[in-house]
Structures are given as structure tokens and as C-alpha cells.
């Protein structure tokens, strides 16, 4: 390294600095510091002439480091970096000494403030001596994105991205896209989830840049923002696009299982069509239950069934990943509010499905074989710590959904007594109007607090015993049917998702966003975005918006065709690194891994993932990991300079 030649520039900032600090003296003092070639003061360093002064000196005095003693770097670091860069110096060879916010503005004693300013300059000069030139890196960004999950959030994100001109791969685990929105009946008093989904399918069909993989899952993800390589396993559907939906195969299929697409309200065969408008519009064979008897193959007149299909592995290059794998409905344990013990105790999802005209009951409310005269919704099942199996969080959508369906019931069956047994009604925002309407439609609300309601199954029928909070009495309500308003759980396969994508989980089990408030659709890892209920319970509108928002983030990332990587990140000295792997565990962004170089374990920093916090540097026991711009030697030099010492490392 060439001997440092440092120029120091002390700013008056009008009187802001010069009023309290003797800037001339500071500049004089700076000249006495080792390696300082030139030191000047000027009235406004940030002004054009001030900047020109620096540029001129860089050329004249052949400076290779610049220290500007003025205001906070948060204000003008960019300004001065640009200035030195214009003079042909690497812009990271500029260091600022904050003698305004940290000195002149907070002190009044001119002499002491001047002394302090000198020391601040000395510290900055000490650090400057060890500054390295750094280069911003650029990597090419693939113009494609992978969307995981074909629910409304994923579909929205896919549409947005495809319209933007990116190639989109939509990977869906089940044989159809559409997710749960397609199944849950009315999402508001006028709109059916299935309608929204079918309209989205129309748009998807129009879009040539969306490639859909159903029956598929992501099994491996490597690389970094802009350059991910994703491996997709495509499980066989056994039915080809020759299928005409005639349905003959379904009749001959000997296997019958509970139909998850109707939330268990009826049964389906091993070869089945998930729902009427399913997309892609072909039958599928559930490979988990199919016994390959071949009956369907025999009966199919169109030769659409091929039982010899094998799983395929597809490798995709993508620039960004949108995770929208949604949620699972809460699974009440047997006996939780009588669940599983009585045919008339059902879940909110089943009820909502039932009220959909395309459900097995054709939209009729038939529970336990009859139309109930009295029906109760129990809220917060699986949420807000009500039962031992419940989560602590509120599932956000169940109150609104329950009330919405209660209104539907009241509209259709005005004589049915509808009770909603709740803890707090969470009809936030404009959904409050539903709560209001429910009152007008004579839906009854029963509030409980800490004591949870109990369901009694007696020969005389069902009863709910509840300690009513607002009258502080135990009451017993006779009902014909009970609907458990179940909340949301993180999807069952979230563990695999985490293992593959290295996103992390919050305490409640959902994926953690980069920042709960200001980066709600970004994962901490650059290039991975989150949409829908994967980050926690949402309603359908919020999920859709999140789909668009996640798409916007991916667009921003990929729009320039390349991704710039900040240079002030961690760097490994492979000569020193012993591969002890301590840094791997401390990195909040999973940017560090251990790799093998010539048989030696060494840490490897994925530059595109590193955000430059430096915690790995602090943790590194061998000094092999260095945070560029804040290296040990730089910070030690700064520390020692407080006391006039020199660093000798």
C-alpha cells in the first residue's frame, strides 16, 4: 500500500461551526498529524466552491485520502463521496469528522470545543489512514421470478410480475391453483371467493409469461438475489391435457377419501377434479392414495390417463422468489369444543363452504342432516390462547368471516337463532359495518373472557355453557349446530420451506419479514419476498394487496437488469479463516456459509446477501472476517487516536 497522503478540510458551516470552534486552529492542528499533506478551512465545504477546493487539492497534492470535518455523515457523506469520486479518487477513501452535531452545536466553551474538534479530526485522520478503496459490485439479474403458492396472493403477484415483462414460474403444491379463496364461499356479502378466483384464472390464461407447475414443490434453492437457482419437483398428475372432464373415470375409481376441497364435507375419489372451475382444467390422480388399479385408464375414452408418469425435477434460473404458500386452517383436537364428537359440530371453513352454491349441499345449510333452528359460532378457536392447543395470536379474519356467514344464514333462514360467542369482535376498519348489520339482522353476540365456553353433548341435544362476561352469569344455550371459528396456522410444510429458502420464523410460527412495520413483504434475505398469510393471518383483500406489493419489490430489484452490491460488507481472509463456522450462526441474513477451498474449510460471504452489519466481524475469533469500511484496524486506530496513540496490529 502506498503511503497515505491525507487532505483535511474543516468547514465553518457559516457560524454553525466557526461560532464555537476555532476552525483555523483545527486546520493548523490537522497539518501536524502524521500523513496529513494539506489542511484547509472554508466557509461552506458542501457548496460548489468548497467541493472544488477538495477536487483541486486531490489533483495538485496527489492526495489519496480525504477527511472532511463538518457535519454528520448522514447529511453529506454522499455529497463528499461524490466530490472525491469526481476528482478521480475512490469514493470510499473519504472520511467525515462530525464537528457540528457532535461538537459545535452541543458545546459552548470555545476552547474546549476546539480541543474536542481537534481530537475528532485526529480520530478521523487515524481511521482515514487505514481506509481501503472499495468497489461496488454489480451482478446480472435474471429477468424471471418464482412464485411459490397459487392462492390469491401468489396469483396476484404472478400477474403483476408477468405484466411487467418477467418470466414467472408459479409453483403450486396441489393439482389446481386458486388456493383456499376458491373454496370458502362468500368473502363478503356480495362476492364469492370462487368468482374472484375464476376471474383471476381468465387473466392468467391470457398471460403467456406465466408458467404454472401444479403438483409441484420447491426442493432446493441456491444462489442469491438476481441469480437464484431453484429446483422444482413436479409430481405426476397421471392425467394429460387430453382430459375432457367427462368424469367417467371418477365413477369407476375404487378409492374414496375425505374431500379436502370441501373441507371434509363429502368424499372424493383418488381421481378427481378439485372443484368446478379448477385450473388447469383437468382431472388429477392423487398419487398418495391411488393404488394404480388401472380402472380409470381403461374407461377413459380419450386416452388422457397415463399411470406411468414419473416425478420430474426441473431446474429454473430466477431473479427473485415470492413466497405465498398461505396458511393451514387450525386443526381442532378431538374434543376441543366437542369437535369430532358430534356430527353437528363443524368448522367455520366447512360452514362457509356449505353456503357456497357449488358445495355438496348446494348452498343449503344442512348440518347433521337437518337445517338447524339454532346455530352458534364459537370464536377464537385456536387463537388468542383460548384452549391448550390454541395460539397466542389473533387470526384476524375469523370474526369477519363468521359474521359474514351469520348474516348469510339470517338472510336465508330468518327464523334460525344465530349466536356468535366471542372474546372481542375484531371487525376492524370498514368491516365494522358487518357487525352493525348483524345486529340489525338479529344475530346474537355472547361475550366471554377468560373462562372459555363449554360444549355439552347430551341426549337432548347440544348445549353451550358460557360465562357471559357482560352479565357475569353462567348461561346455557341450547343449539342444534355449532360452528368453530377456527383460526390460521402456519402451513404444515413451513419447516421444509425454511430449510429450502432459509427464511426464518417468528415466535408465532409464521415467516418473519425484514421489518414488521416498514418492510412487511420482504424477507430478511434479499431477493425473497413474502405475500399473503405466510407472514401471519390476513384477510383475502390484504393477501391480494400483498401479492401486488411483493411483486413491486421484485420489480424494483430486477428492473435494472443488474443488482448493485454495497461494498461495505463482510470479507473473509481465507489465509486466516479456519472455518470455525461461528460467523455462520451469527449472520442474520444467512449470507455466510462454509465452503471447501483446496480441502480447507473456509467461510464464504455471499456478497449479494450481506447487508453490512459487521456482527460477524465482531464474532470472528481469528480476525479473518473483516467488515469493510469498519475493519478492526480502522476502528482500533480510531479508538487509539482518542488518546493520541497509534495502532500497531
Amino acid at each position, binding site marked *: 500500500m502506498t503511503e497515505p497522503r491525507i487532505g483535511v478540510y474543516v468547514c465553518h458551516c457559516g457560524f454553525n461551526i466557526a461560532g464555537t470552534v476555532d476552525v483555523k486552529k483545527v486546520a493548523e492542528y490537522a497539518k501536524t498529524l502524521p500523513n496529513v499533506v494539506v489542511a484547509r478551512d472554508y466557509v*461552506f465545504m458542501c457548496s460548489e466552491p468548497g467541493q472544488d477546493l477538495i477536487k483541486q487539492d486531490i489533483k495538485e497534492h496527489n492526495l489519496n485520502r480525504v477527511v472532511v470535518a463538518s457535519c454528520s455523515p448522514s447529511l453529506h457523506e454522499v455529497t463528499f463521496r461524490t466530490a472525491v469520486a469526481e476528482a478521480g479518487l475512490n469514493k470510499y477513501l473519504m472520511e467525515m469528522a462530525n464537528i457540528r452535531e457532535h461538537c459545535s452545536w452541543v458545546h459552548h466553551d470555545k476552547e474546549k470545543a476546539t480541543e474536542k474538534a481537534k481530537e475528532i479530526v485526529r480520530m478521523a485522520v487515524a481511521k482515514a489512514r487505514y481506509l481501503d478503496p472499495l468497489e461496488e459490485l454489480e451482478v446480472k439479474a435474471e429477468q424471471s421470478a418464482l412464485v411459490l403458492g397459487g392462492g390469491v396472493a401468489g396469483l396476484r403477484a404472478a400477474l403483476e410480475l408477468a405484466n*411487467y415483462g418477467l418470466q414467472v414460474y408459479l409453483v403450486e403444491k396441489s393439482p389446481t391453483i386458486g388456493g383456499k379463496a376458491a373454496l370458502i364461499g362468500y368473502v363478503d356479502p356480495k362476492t364469492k371467493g370462487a368468482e374472484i378466483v375464476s376471474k383471476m384464472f381468465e387473466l392468467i390464461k391470457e398471460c403467456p409469461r406465466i408458467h404454472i407447475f401444479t403438483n409441484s414443490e420447491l426442493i432446493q434453492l441456491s444462489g442469491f438475489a438476481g441469480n437464484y437457482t431453484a429446483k422444482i419437483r413436479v409430481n405426476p398428475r397421471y392425467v394429460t391435457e387430453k382430459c375432457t372432464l367427462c368424469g367417467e373415470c371418477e365413477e369407476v375409481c375404487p378409492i374414496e377419501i375425505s374431500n379436502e376441497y370441501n373441507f371434509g364435507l363429502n368424499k372424493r375419489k383418488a381421481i378427481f377434479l378439485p372443484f368446478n372451475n379448477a385450473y388447469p382444467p383437468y382431472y388429477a390422480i392423487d398419487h398418495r392414495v391411488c393404488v394404480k388399479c388401472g380402472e380409470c385408464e381403461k374407461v377413459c375414452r380419450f386416452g388422457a390417463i397415463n399411470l406411468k408418469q414419473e416425478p420430474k425435477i426441473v431446474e429454473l434460473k430466477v431473479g427473485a422468489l415470492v413466497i405465498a404458500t398461505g396458511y393451514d386452517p387450525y386443526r381442532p383436537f378431538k374434543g376441543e369444543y366437542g369437535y369430532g364428537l358430534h356430527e353437528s359440530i363443524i368448522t367455520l371453513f366447512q360452514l362457509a363452504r356449505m353456503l357456497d352454491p357449488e358445495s355438496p349441499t348446494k348452498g343449503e345449510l344442512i348440518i347433521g342432516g337437518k337445517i338447524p333452528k339454532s346455530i352458534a359460532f364459537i370464536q377464537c378457536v385456536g387463537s388468542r390462547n383460548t384452549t391448550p392447543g390454541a395460539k397466542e395470536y389473533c387470526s384476524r379474519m375469523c370474526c369477519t368471516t363468521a359474521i359474514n356467514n351469520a348474516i348469510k344464514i339470517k338472510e336465508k333462514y330468518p327464523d334460525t337463532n344465530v349466536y356468535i360467542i366471542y372474546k372481542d369482535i375484531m371487525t376492524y376498519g370498514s368491516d365494522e359495518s358487518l357487525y352493525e348489520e348483524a345486529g340489525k339482522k338479529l344475530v346474537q353476540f355472547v361475550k366471554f373472557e377468560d373462562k372459555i365456553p363449554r360444549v355439552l353433548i347430551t341426549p337432548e341435544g347440544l348445549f353451550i355453557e358460557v360465562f357471559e362476561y357482560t352479565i357475569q352469569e353462567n348461561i346455557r344455550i341450547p343449539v342444534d349446530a355449532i360452528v368453530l371459528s377456527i383460526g390460521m396456522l402456519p402451513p404444515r410444510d413451513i419447516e421444509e420451506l425454511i430449510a429450502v429458502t432459509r427464511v426464518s420464523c417468528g415466535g408465532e410460527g409464521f415467516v418473519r419479514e425484514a421489518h414488521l*412495520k*416498514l*418492510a*412487511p413483504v420482504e424477507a430478511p434475505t434479499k431477493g425473497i419476498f413474502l405475500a399473503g398469510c405466510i407472514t401471519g393471518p390476513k384477510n383475502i383483500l390484504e393477501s391480494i394487496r400483498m401479492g401486488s406489493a411483493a411483486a413491486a419489490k421484485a420489480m424494483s430489484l430486477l428492473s435494472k437488469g443488474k443488482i448493485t452490491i454495497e461494498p461495505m460488507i463482510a470479507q473473509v481472509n481465507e489465509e486466516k479463516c479456519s472455518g470455525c463456522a461461528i460467523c455462520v450462526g451469527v449472520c442474520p441474513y444467512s449470507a455466510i456459509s462454509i465452503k471447501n477451498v483446496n480441502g480447507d474449510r473456509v467461510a464464504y460471504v455471499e456478497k449479494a446477501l450481506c447487508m453490512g452489519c459487521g456482527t460477524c466481524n465482531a464474532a470472528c475469533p481469528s480476525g479473518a472476517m473483516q467488515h469493510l469500511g469498519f475493519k478492526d484496524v480502522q476502528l482500533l486506530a480510531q479508538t487509539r487516536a482518542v488518546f493520541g496513540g497509534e495502532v500497531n496490529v
Partner: protein
Amino acid sequence: MSSVLIVGGGVAGIQAALDLAEQGIEVYLVDKAPSVGGKMAYLDKTFPTLDCASCILAPKMAALLRYPNIKLIMNSEVLEVSGRAGNFRVKILKKPTYVDWSKCNGCGVCTEKCPTKVPNEYNMGLSQRRAIYIMFPQAVPKRAIIDAEHCIRLNPPPKAKEKAKGPLCGVCERNCPTKAIRYDQQPEIIDLNVAAIIIATGMELYDPKNLPELGYGKHQNVYTNLEFERLVSATGPTNGEIVRKSDGKHPRKIAWIQCVGSRDVRFNHYCSAYCCMAATKQAILAKEHLPNVECTVYYMDIRAFGKGFNEFLERAKKEFGVRYIRGKVRIDEIPESKNLKIVYEDTAESYLKTEEYDMVVLSMAVTPNSKLSIPLELAEGGFIKLKNPYLDPVSTTIEGIFVVGAVAGAKDIPDSVTEASAAAARAALIAKRLACPTPEVVK
């Protein structure tokens, strides 16, 4: 490539601007205030993480300045919009700031020298600022502005004007190190051509004076929640010390009243969505500032619906001992002590109770800033109507105009930020002429 206009520089507007600018699209960000930041800039901390609001907002505000393709048009409002998606013509009225912002460097000398003191809006009138002022220390852009109404030079008191021979005062002009003061600045009309517009004008607090039974304005120690937020904020009028307006003493008992103006057919039918958690947060902050203070929240339903909210609520109850009482209240002032008597029915115990508090905070409803010069259809509650939120998220009834944040429905910060990004995606498609504006047309 064409540009996008964003109306409103709150957190939603900022987010949308950053998302669009990152894609290389030119963005005009218009705000009626002299700084971006919106309501979030007033907050001390945010729920449920108790993140310091300025710590997370200020970097985003500062980031606006780093994009050469973001043009901040502050202290301005939209006068007129014509044209259609892809080619809107917009007229913007830029009101005079009386300071040449290209010269001003926000050093603040003028604000120290100015002789006129007026109530500081940023601190909800709880402290004073000068007639020439910088909106708040972290303002972006950090530029001074003269409040013409109170400036002696621009609006001289009639008597003084008669006596004086020449122009009055002029202290700021004399002291400005960069010679940026322009007393003769005139309003300016800016014409823009933009491809899409994002409305992010946010919300205002509902006027508490509409609820006389709560005595706001009449009783000194009744605060709105935004006032309390300033009071508890480290950058607020008391540097974060919670003291009463009437006697400057620390309160020992504080009550929060929920659903003030919300969920009430007489005022606003909707739930304002943020206030339950905001009150919980403020109660925790009060406990942190004054460990012996007793905090009580009078609520109807605690709406702890978002991520981490219920956990936050449980923490408030268990860790901080915040008391939650379900019931609506009436507030009477005790004239001698200026304490407040809250009369309520504890709906658990079913009879009328009265309790005395030193301070009462009203969790105000929000009302949308939806009175715009753009003929957008409004929905119930005065919120801007969404055309088809399921298929065309964040689109208004006019093609190419999108709406985000609280002006489209009361909501909290993450939801606003999400919508802002969503709108950025939709606007980007139009600005880059990549897609037909609305999906219906695709068919």
C-alpha cells in the same frame, strides 16, 4: 419513460415513491406540508414492537433525497387533474415558502433569530415555534419556511405598519448565511404530465369537539392521542416528560378512552383500526416513563388483530399491569384539582362507577383526507372508493389513479406500506406502458 405523481408524503407515499424510483421511474411527490413524513413523523414509537418511529422512518425519508428521479414538491397541492391513464395533465399549486430552497441549507440560524413565536403544529400546539421555522428536526427536505400569517414582515400588525417607514423586521433576511430569504416569493403553478397518480393523502384525527360529553377543549387535562404521543415523545414539547397542561405535574392515573368517534353511528360507523393498539402502546410508554403511573383503557372490543398485536396486548396486561375496562364513559372535570371524573358502567360488574384520573387521553377516530380536487368516487365513511379491490387492488374508480393508506380505509402502518408497494407495482405497469391499465380490458 413516463412519470408518476404521488399525492401525500406520509409513510405510504414515501414507500410508493421509493419503490417506483428504484425502478427508474420519475416520481413527483406532492405534499401540503413543508416536509414529508406524514402522521408517522409525529409518533414516538410504533406498536407492537415499540420501534422508535423516527428511527425507522427517517432513513426512508432521507432515502428520498438519494434518488435523482424523485422530485419533492412540498408545501403544494393538486389543483386539477385532466386526461386519462397514461397521460394525465396535472396542475399543482406551489404555495410560497418565502425562502429560496435551492439556497437554504437548513442551518436554522433564521429560526433562532426570528422574534415571533407561534404555537407549534408539529407538537400539536403544546410548544412554540417561530414564524420562520423548519417543520421538525428530521424534516426532509430540511428547509426553512415562513409562516406568512404570523411573520411581522409579511403580515405586519396594522398599528406597527402605520408607524414604520420602511418594511418591518427582516431579521431572518439579515441573518441568513446563504441569503435565501425571498419575501416577494409568489405562488407558482406547476404543470406536470404523468402516466399514473397515487393518492396517499392519509387521514386526520376526527375533531374531538364533536363529542362534548368528553369535554375536550373544555377540560384542560383531556388530550387527544396524537397530543399524548407528542407529549411522550423524546422530540416532543417536554422532551418526553409526561406532565399535565393544568399544573405541570406528573399524572398518577391516566385513562384512555377508546372508540372516540369510531364505531358510532352518530359520527363514524367504521372502526379506526389503529387506536386499540395505539392506546396499549401509549399506556406502556407511560408506564416506562413514569413507573408508578396507573394506566386504564376503557374499551369496547380490543382489536388486537395484527401480527404480534395480541401478544403485545397480553404483555401490556401482564408485564405492565395496564387495566382494561369494558365500557363507554362520560367525563366530568373536578374544578378544584382539574382532575377528571370518569363515569362509566363497568360492563362486567353492571353498575355505574366513577373514578378520578389526572389525565385522560381520547383515542380519536380518523377521518380520511379525501376532499381532493380529483373527482373520485367515495365510499362509506368518506374513504376513497376502490373500484374492484379483488381483481384490481388499490385502483380507484378512475383508471390510472390508485389509492393507498388510510385515505382508502382506516389502517395501520404495515398495511399502508403494503398497499403503497402494491400501488407502485400497478402504477409502474402504466408508467412503463407494459400492461393495459385494468385487467378487465385484457379480456
